[in-house]
């Protein structure tokens, strides 16, 4: 029995911890060591944010099995709440982000508490309604969102540059939270709800509380990401934040990477960001259809996405041990 093992919780595997710390250190040092072009700097910062949102989407969509097509609502609500607070310039810039996250989480709870009693497909359709209703109302609510012309934010170039690290630390927190949720009682509760909601309720899992809590957390993270995203562009406008494309992007990142796996959606987000860059440059009028085709192909041939492929390879390499 080694002594250092006592200092990390038993559900945390040392290998995961080592990979995590190494990755965080490398990404932290990267802009100091390599001269990143503004384009690469930009892409990495946005990738951190999207990985974080994909992981958070997966808490409700993957862990609880409640696919949300309406997470753009929280992304936008969080973004706009943060933007309004930032414009007041009374607190350090990260306070508005947290505030945006809280508002977004509360908003998620407000529509989620009644609709989460729907299971599976019915919940998903309700979320389409949430997304559309939020988009409509906030696009026309000019006093809050500035309408179609949007809001400009007081972010200077130096702060914008440093957002790389803020996005990175934010991602690190979200990754830790993903791992912790999956391995906690909450994660087990969600897993049982996903498998059979009635059986879960019968054995004493607080179904309503678990789902509400995880939707709040997921909404809050996506809301904070919305705030950082808006800060990065020093500008925010409703069609970008609330668009249906935005909601689809969260779903697609998780599906490509592997819905319900802990870190798969993060991989999916990386692939998604690269893919989107390529598609927008080469086939701007085809990207929606290609996303759709990708969804169809993943569902038909590898429901766990990239993670499923990795599991397959791992199983081939170690046939005597179950990879999952």
């Amino acid at each position, binding site marked *: 029995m080694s002594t250092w093992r006592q200092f990390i919780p038993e559900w945390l595997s040392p290998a995961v911890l080592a990979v995590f710390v190494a990755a965080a250190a490398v990404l932290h040092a990267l802009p100091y060591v390599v001269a990143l072009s503004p384009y690469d700097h930009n892409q990495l910062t946005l990738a951190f944010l999207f990985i974080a949102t994909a992981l958070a989407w997966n808490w409700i969509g993957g862990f609880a099995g409640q696919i949300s097509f309406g997470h753009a609502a929280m992304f936008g609500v969080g973004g706009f709440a943060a933007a309004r607070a930032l414009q007041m310039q009374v607190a350090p810039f990260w306070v508005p982000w947290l505030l945006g996250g809280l508002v977004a989480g509360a908003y998620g709870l407000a529509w989620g508490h009644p609709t989460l009693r729907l299971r599976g497909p*019915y919940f998903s359709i309700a979320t389409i309604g949430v997304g559309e209703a939020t988009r409509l109302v906030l696009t026309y609510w000019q006093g809050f969102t500035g309408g179609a012309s949007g809001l400009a934010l007081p972010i200077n170039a130096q702060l914008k540059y440093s957002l790389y690290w803020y996005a990175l630390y934010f991602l690190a927190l979200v990754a830790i939270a993903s791992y912790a949720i999956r391995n906690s009682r909450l994660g087990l509760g969600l897993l049982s709800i996903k498998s059979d909601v009635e059986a879960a309720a019968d054995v004493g899992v607080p179904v309503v509380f678990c789902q509400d809590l995880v939707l709040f957390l997921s909404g809050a993270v996506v809301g904070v990401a919305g705030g950082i995203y808006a800060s990065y562009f020093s500008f925010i406008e409703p069609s970008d934040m609330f668009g249906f494309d935005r909601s689809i992007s969260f779903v697609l990142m998780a599906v490509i990477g592997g819905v319900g796996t802990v870190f798969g959606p993060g991989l999916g987000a990386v692939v998604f960001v690269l893919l989107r860059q390529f598609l927008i440059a080469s086939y701007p009028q085809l990207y929606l259809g290609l996303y759709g085709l990708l*969804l169809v192909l993943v569902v038909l041939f590898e429901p766990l996405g990239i993670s499923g492929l990795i599991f397959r390879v791992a199983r081939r390499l170690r046939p005597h041990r179950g990879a999952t």
Partner: protein
Amino acid sequence: MARGLELLLSAVLLAGLYAMMAYGLGLIYGVLRIVNLNHGGMIMVGAYLGWYLHERAGIDPYLSLPIAAVVGFATGVVIYGGLVRYLPRGPAGGVQSLLLLFGVWLVLRNVAYLQFTGNDQAIRTDYSTKAVVVLGSALSLNRLIVFALAALLLVALDLLLTRTYLGKAIRAVAQNADSCRVAGIDVERIYTFTFGFGTALATMAGLLLGTLFPFNPTFGAGELLKSFVIVVLGGLGSVLGTAVAALILAIVEVFAILLLPAYLTGAVGFVLLVLVLIFRPGGLFGQRVLG
């Protein structure tokens, strides 16, 4: 008072179309336990089909309904036979078919966008702006025709489901697919037919909607939501329940225009959905959809 009566009449006329639109979604869910997320996509396809046939071939949109039915049915059979058939069903499989059909919807949207651009279109005929006077209030001729056609199709569907062997088989499979296999019903074939019927209904509803409202490739998302509200409220397997639920939605929508600014009326369907979920999660009639 006269204004109120006029609105009520227009709500009734709208409800006929809503009921037909929702029935396609409810039928597929009732039999296959799959939510056809591509429902909105097929509504959009129906609208463009009617528009295209009218613009290019000069066919009256109402006369092209049979074409929409055939195209919709064939598309449904292809989507079921080519894609949906391979997916698992039940609680775990629901998510997969949902994502798959959502993907199909995105592809259809993109195809419509490439083919017809993102501009709003409308099916305009010589009689589009004609009105007739009923009970002292002027009603659009189009809306009357649409109501009559939708009601006719619903009655025909009800007769098909209750009076024919195929209809009995469909209802039997909805109740218990395993027993049907034992009784010698080709369940796979019934699934294919049902998916085709539901898709054909969506396509025809889309064509009729296209004669009343402008549309673009994103058309159908709101209609999917409305269909969903109606199915939850009205329950499964009851034409009457669907019709009453459609009437409730139409009345709420029509009167919301009086009270709310125009941009908020799009959110009415969703608010109604939440209210239904809180107060009547079991729906009003027929078989419960939830829990």
